């Protein structure tokens, strides 16, 4: 299946992916209206130590430990995509405790968010990839 992959040599650390992610999942039409003066809760996060930068989002693991560990049964994997039912999530953070990649984080209301590849929002494919100015994030098939 197609997944999001990062190439840290190409990452500029501009964090556009974070903004594009937050906008794509906001449901708003206007970027400024969606993000201006607001704390954003993107599902992809740039890690940065001043020298190296790269973006991290869900790996959509072959056997996701978050799915097995969710105490609410709120995380499922269907057609290769790991999704979270935020209506069922109680914000216990067990998924944060088990995800080896640090790919889940709470959203504004305390329930968990994760990358769902923009398949069900208005973008239809990952907004972080579409907006990456240096092609440091790609969306492609690399197996299973």
């Amino acid at each position, binding site marked *: 299946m197609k*997944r999001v*992959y*990062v*190439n*840290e040599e190409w990452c500029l650390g501009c964090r556009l992916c974070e903004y594009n992610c937050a906008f794509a999942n906001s449901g708003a039409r206007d970027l400024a209206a969606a993000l201006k003066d607001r704390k954003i809760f993107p599902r992809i996060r740039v*890690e940065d*130590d001043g020298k*190296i930068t*790269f973006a*991290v989002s869900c*790996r959509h*693991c*072959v056997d996701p*430990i978050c799915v*097995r*560990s969710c*105490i*609410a*049964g709120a995380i499922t994997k269907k057609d290769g995509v790991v999704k979270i039912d935020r*209506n*069922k999530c*109680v*914000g*216990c*953070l*067990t*998924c*944060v*405790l*088990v*995800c*080896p*990649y*640090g790919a889940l*984080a709470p959203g504004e209301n*305390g329930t968990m968010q994760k990358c769902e590849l923009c398949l069900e929002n208005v973008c239809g494919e990952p907004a972080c990839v579409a907006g990456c100015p240096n092609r440091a994030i790609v969306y492609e098939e*690399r*197996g*299973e």
Partner: protein
Amino acid sequence: MRMKRYVIIGNGTAAAGCIEGIRSVDRDGGITVVSAEKHHVYSRPLISYYLEGKTDTERMKYRPDGFYEENGVRVLFSVRAESFDPDGRTVRLDDGTELGYDALCVAAGSRPFVPPFEGIEKAENKFCFMTLDDALALERALTESSRVLIVGAGLIGLKCAEGILDRVGSVTVCDLADRVLSSILDAECAAVVQKQLEDHGIDFMLGDSVARFSKDTAYMKSGKEVPFDILVLAVGVRANSELVKNAGGEVNRGIVVDVRQATSLPSVYAAGDCAEGFDASIGQNRVLAILPNAYTEGRTAGINMAGGDDRFDCAIPMNSVGFFGFHIMTAGSYDGEMTEEREEESVRRFFTRDGCLIGFIIIGDTVRAGIYTDLIRKKTPLSTVDFDFAKKYASNLIFSPEIRRKRFGGVV
């Protein structure tokens, strides 16, 4: 070939895992679930969130309504398994029926342990806090003025306290141990958590235990008297292992299983809180009564019952628990050298041994803590990561570029 007959005793998380494990190998065999409770499979740890109003009985369903039907599962609700015959391969139910099986999974969970307190039978309005029915019964008894005494400052007792605090007059928690969450926190971390809970209005009476009960008062060993309208008993739990014991299987504190979840009896498996499986953090068997392990054990059992070959050999104790919006995460064992990073509202304690991280306690900032858990589970040599950085921030920056390329450039 004749279709296989699978029987699962229990209808919780481990049973759901077992069903999904069986179906990943065998689409056709008949699966029968024996459920003592009358409910569709639900998330047991959510009962405190239910009382707190953060979920409801519909959203608490661990799997969707169509789960049994889609998986070709027959569920017998409100029925108990009384015994099974490992030679004849039959299970006897309390309604007199007998079920034949080719492979059996005991996923019977645990039950509250109530010590023989003097006068406990006189105490009125007493509840346990294990099942949805327990939570519903407790909810019916709550009033705005109720004085609630909870015996037990473990996870069950404290989550109950959080769940009901805003709906009652007062909540007092007592425990024989001198600290809260004594099974997962050391003394100093427990003190930090206790302070937070006290700030939210929960009263504690620690290092003290009930000498005797009257109908509405607990007389403590210290001489104090605690009047109550509602009593919640959350002292501990015991594995439901009797079925296997009575059938001649090996039982310790739970049903003894190997890494394939097989018991000592042929074609009999066990999973979840009733089982005593391999704990990789101590290298021996132990009951690890946490939901993620229940699911995975159930799934491993199911795969093997259906003729596959699966092993669950990386289980470790771990807990993520929040109270009033602040979070605590723990994992692994604390039997090693401790280093601490402390900020105002945040504590991180790391335990290392033989060059590996073996456990941690984090209070406060839990961002990306799974990176630590994975270091424990994979026994990653700390010489291969930037552990000084890791102590301050859970981050993928602690890995070398080569390792990161594998983690983020391939299928994992």
